[in-house]
């Protein structure tokens, strides 16, 4: 799929902008603070209904404006769909498809799919587990939108259950009424938790081969003599808080995770640690306590990988997502936001080669020299609130 046209009104720094796009590579070049990232952020918003930079919607609206409008014409297998989103804080956002009647914004999910790589992604390797969980869950939702509901149900149940643990633990009483309601929340936590966990485990199993392959591609030639000519192998290990699950869950070639098995395992784990949970007043097992470990050779990437290796790993995760989504169906739009400046010449060239064949790649860069020759397609200059075609 590719975006044929993007139009923004009062979005971030843009009062109004019309950007005709085409398939293949496109570079957006402009000095810092001219609004390059805001353009690709808008596309990310159409794809995920969220921003990769801020949590709420309010900062997305141009200062002083009441609402922002994003229009994107998306071409998927020769069919064009026009998505319009109106973002207004304090009110429900509205969406329209092909100028039809207004629908719920979530109904436009899946029309545009993007994979966005930005400097912030270094936190996937170095940051806390929450960021890696979000990475998995977002990819899960992109593959199967149903998981957006599972995820939000799980979070709601988790909040309620934790509140109950806290109050029951603080009161130092475990009379039967409290325990009885706790059992109810346990049941719901296990049900939604098992679904989410099964989704994540299967996702990891599918993702590992892609990550290994893309890391090898991006990092080829980085190897020192110690590692041998093949270099170190990048892999993923799902570190779950729910112990006692079959060993091969979440491993490539292993069996698919069964939600029913996970649900009963999670339930019995909850029963085992009940006392501990009451004392500490927190939910101690479940997908919200898990981590995705990034392994390089024999060691975890976090703490052991060099700066360059960390970059390569973060990049490999995004490229792997891109290839996984392409394998599932429509090829997503690949967005590389300000990344070439961060990479050395060799990595730059390898990354460019690796993505040059994508249906649509949008690259932002501060100076034209940062854009590799392999990605020299259309070029736009972004300056002083205007976007001009430059080549």
């Amino acid at each position: 799929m590719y975006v044929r046209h993007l139009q923004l009104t009062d979005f971030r720094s843009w009062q109004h902008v019309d950007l005709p796009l085409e398939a293949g590579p496109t570079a957006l070049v402009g000095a810092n603070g001219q609004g390059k990232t805001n353009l690709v952020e808008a596309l990310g918003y159409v794809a995920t209904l969220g921003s990769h930079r801020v949590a709420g919607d309010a900062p997305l609206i141009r200062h002083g404006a009441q609402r922002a409008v994003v229009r994107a014409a998306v071409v998927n297998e020769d069919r064009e769909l026009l998505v319009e989103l109106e973002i207004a804080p304090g009110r429900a956002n509205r969406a329209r498809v092909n100028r039809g009647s207004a629908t719920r914004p979530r109904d436009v999910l899946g029309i545009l799919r993007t994979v966005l790589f930005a400097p912030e992604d270094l936190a996937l390797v170095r940051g806390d587990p929450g960021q890696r969980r979000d990475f998995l869950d977002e990819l899960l939702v992109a593959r199967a939108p149903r998981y957006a509901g599972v995820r939000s149900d799980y979070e709601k149940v988790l909040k309620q259950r934790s509140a109950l643990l806290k109050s029951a633990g603080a009161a130092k009483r475990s009379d039967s009424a409290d325990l009885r309601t706790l059992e109810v929340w346990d049941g719901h936590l296990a049900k939604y938790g098992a679904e989410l966990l099964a989704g994540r485990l299967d996702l990891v199993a599918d993702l590992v081969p892609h990550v290994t392959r893309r890391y090898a591609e991006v990092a080829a030639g980085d190897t020192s003599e110690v590692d041998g000519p093949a270099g170190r192998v990048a892999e993923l290990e799902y570190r779950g808080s729910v112990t006692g699950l079959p060993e091969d869950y979440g491993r490539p070639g292993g069996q698919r995770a069964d939600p029913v098995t996970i649900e009963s395992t999670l339930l019995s784990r909850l029963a085992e640690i009940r006392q501990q949970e009451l004392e500490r007043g927190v939910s101690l097992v479940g997908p919200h306590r898990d981590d995705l470990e990034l392994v390089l050779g024999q060691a975890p990437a976090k703490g052991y990988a060099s700066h360059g290796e960390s970059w390569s790993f973060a990049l490999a995760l995004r490229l792997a997502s891109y290839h996984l989504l392409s394998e599932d169906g429509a090829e997503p739009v690949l967005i590389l936001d300000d990344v070439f400046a961060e990479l050395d010449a060799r990595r730059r060239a390898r990354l460019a080669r690796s993505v040059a064949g994508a249906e649509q790649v949008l690259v932002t860069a501060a100076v034209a020299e940062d854009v590799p020759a392999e990605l020299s397609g259309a070029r736009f200059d972004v300056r002083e609130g205007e976007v001009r075609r430059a080549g």
Partner: protein
Amino acid sequence: MYEGPVQDLIDELGRLPGIGPKGAQRIAFHLLSAEPADVTRLQDALQRVKEGVVFCEVCGNVSERTRCRICQDTRRDPRLVCVVEEPKDVLAVERTREFRGRYHVLGGALDPLSGVGPDQLRIRDLVSRIGTDEITEIIIATDPNTEGEATATYLVRLLQDFPGLSVTRLASGLPMGGDLEFADELTLGRALSGRRSV
């Protein structure tokens, strides 16, 4: 900011659910220009709702007397009891004109975040009602959200051991008059797992 009483009225109205600052202002100025008789009527209604309305001692619904009209109505089937969260849910079920049994209003749903447990709901009254009345079926009609579902599960566990009592839950799934293609995955998924043979 307006002066004195007008601003006081706007502030008070603004604290009501569903009324924002603009709405509060509009209502306040409407009252200011309304006939004194109309304002007195509203005043009386407000007074009466706090003094006159009591909760039915049997079902917990809002009522004028100690027993509400539905609980007094001998034509209603005493064997069927529909359990709902709020009095406004009673009205919603009544509008269907399908249900000829009686009600039990819990006064909310399990919500530990707001400190609501089984003791804050009228669950004990429900259990003692089942013990004394000739109830044979409990229909659980709590909201299909996180809290409502938890309450339903809790009630099912609590009531499953009563001999001769059947416990049912409202079906959840596709809305009537809707299109299958526009149903969201969650609703459609539920409708699939709750399908029935025809």
